[in-house]
């Protein structure tokens, strides 16, 4: 046992912890995690627009069209928020002013996106850029903008290359402190984009196509499905290392949403990507490892301890938070539960892949990507297809059945231990 622990600590836990603690990775994770909160507003607007679609005749009205435009607008500028939040997260880890860095990141984002100024026939200057550049499509440019602004500012701050502004009021001092760094951030981004003529957005779009292909292939997704639980099993919170990967899946979701906006039906033949972040969330049943089935099996277990934990964990579980089960059962470092914990999400993912590829359920093509909405509801929001709800319910039932034999063995062992103790 002791040897095994050493082995996995050395080769799995330590390197991954190091990775999770890298400033760049932490900035990306923290930034995306707080940026995703903005998507929540869009999610709520999506829910309202779904509810509106149930009212006959409303869809064709001007009101409905205007409302749809609002939803598009909110989702359409998320890239800017991601740039801010990643910059701010980076600043936080560097212990420098996060608001200043956040602002710089937004400026850099706009520079990278190369907007044009066009004067119309009335002499009014128009700001012109492809709208989709500012939405989730731009997420990788957001990453670069945030890190660009954060790291350059940090470099200046750490080397003391700042304006000395003692005696000035504190609020002005903050601005003066960051004036040189901010100017350099802006000029460097401009030189990179306009003088070196680098179109970051187009480069990322080109690079992303093969990467999305790999990540969203059947095997790529199975690997991801297994990696969440594997990480948690070895005591590493999956969200601490997986966010950079999620960025690819978020970009895939943006790709689908674009196609849907063009009026295409969400099928494989129309170029929709099955394994996007929406699909991931749809079958993320109760948190990493899809533990909602386990939770339900616990509620019906013969063991009193199991039932108690099941009742305790069900509410967080419905909101896709499963720390109570991971640490309470526990699943973490527990060889008895390794197999079901890793197998269940793989099975879910494989089934969902085939169901979606056969067109039995519409492929998720929504940007309403919220992790903590109950799966059953999320499935409908993401697909606008009631069959998705059945898919989720079937998967939860199946997962529960897979867990039952493992729980039975565990309950029996616990009972033996308890009687031994009382003797």
């Amino acid at each position: 046992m002791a040897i095994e622990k050493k082995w996995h600590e050395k080769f799995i836990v330590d390197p991954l912890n190091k990775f999770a603690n890298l400033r760049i990775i932490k900035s990306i994770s923290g930034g995306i995690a707080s940026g995703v909160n903005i998507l929540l507003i869009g999610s709520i607007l999506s829910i309202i627009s779904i509810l509106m679609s149930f009212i006959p005749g409303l869809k064709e009205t001007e009101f409905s069209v205007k409302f749809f435009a609002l939803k598009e607008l909110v989702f359409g500028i998320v890239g800017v928020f991601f740039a801010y939040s990643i910059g701010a997260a980076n600043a936080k880890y560097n212990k420098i002013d996060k608001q200043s860095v956040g602002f710089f990141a937004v400026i850099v984002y706009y520079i990278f996106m190369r907007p044009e100024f066009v004067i119309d026939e009335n002499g009014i200057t128009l700001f012109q850029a492809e709208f989709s550049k500012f939405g989730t499509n731009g997420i990788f440019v957001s990453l670069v903008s945030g890190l660009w602004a954060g790291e350059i500012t940090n470099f200046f701050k750490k080397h003391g290359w700042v304006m000395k502004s003692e005696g000035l009021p504190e609020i002005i001092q903050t601005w003066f402190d960051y004036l040189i760094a901010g100017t350099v951030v802006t000029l460097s981004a401009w030189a990179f984009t306009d003088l070196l003529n680098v179109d970051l957005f187009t480069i990322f779009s080109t690079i992303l196509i093969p990467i999305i292909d790999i990540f969203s292939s059947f095997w790529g997704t199975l690997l991801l499905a297994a990696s969440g639980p594997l990480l948690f099993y070895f005591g590493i919170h999956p969200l601490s290392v997986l966010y950079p990967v999620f960025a690819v899946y978020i970009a895939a979701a943006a790709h689908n949403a674009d196609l849907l906006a063009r009026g295409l039906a969400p099928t494989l033949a129309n170029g929709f990507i099955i394994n996007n972040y929406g699909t991931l969330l749809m079958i993320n049943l109760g948190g990493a490892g899809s533990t909602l089935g386990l939770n339900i099996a616990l509620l019906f277990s013969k063991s009193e301890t199991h039932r108690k934990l099941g009742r305790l964990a069900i509410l967080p579980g419905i909101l896709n938070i499963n720390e109570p089960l991971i640490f309470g059962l526990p699943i973490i470092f527990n060889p008895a539960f390794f197999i079901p914990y890793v197998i269940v999400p793989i099975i879910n993912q494989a089934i969902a892949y085939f169901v979606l590829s056969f067109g039995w359920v519409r492929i998720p093509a929504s940007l309403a990507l919220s992790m903590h909405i109950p799966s059953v509801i999320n499935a409908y929001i993401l697909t606008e297809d009631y069959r998705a709800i059945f898919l989720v319910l079937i998967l939860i039932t199946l997962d529960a059945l897979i867990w039952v034999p493992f729980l039975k063995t565990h309950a029996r062992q616990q009972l033996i231990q308890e009687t031994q103790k009382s003797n």
Partner: protein
Amino acid sequence: MTNILLVCQGGMSSSFLVKKIHEAFTKNQEEIQIISKASMEIVDYIDWADIILVSPSVLYAMDEIMEVCQEYGIIPILIPLELYGRMDGDAIRKLIVNS
């Protein structure tokens, strides 16, 4: 009044535990304020906090959390796996009181 800050990965799982810990203190007629946040937000709340509790889910970032807390003279308390998983407010209260 004692201010307690509980941190985990995203501030989500800890939000469920906050209520349980608060209940445990109220039962003993002790008044506390407790909030839950993501571990990256410690720096924003450390001025406010007297005690910092850490979820086992952010064990990987413990070195840095220690470093930040030390600057402010606070020793963070790591909640044991079992107590965190069972959301055992009473046991966590004891842990706080004894330290």
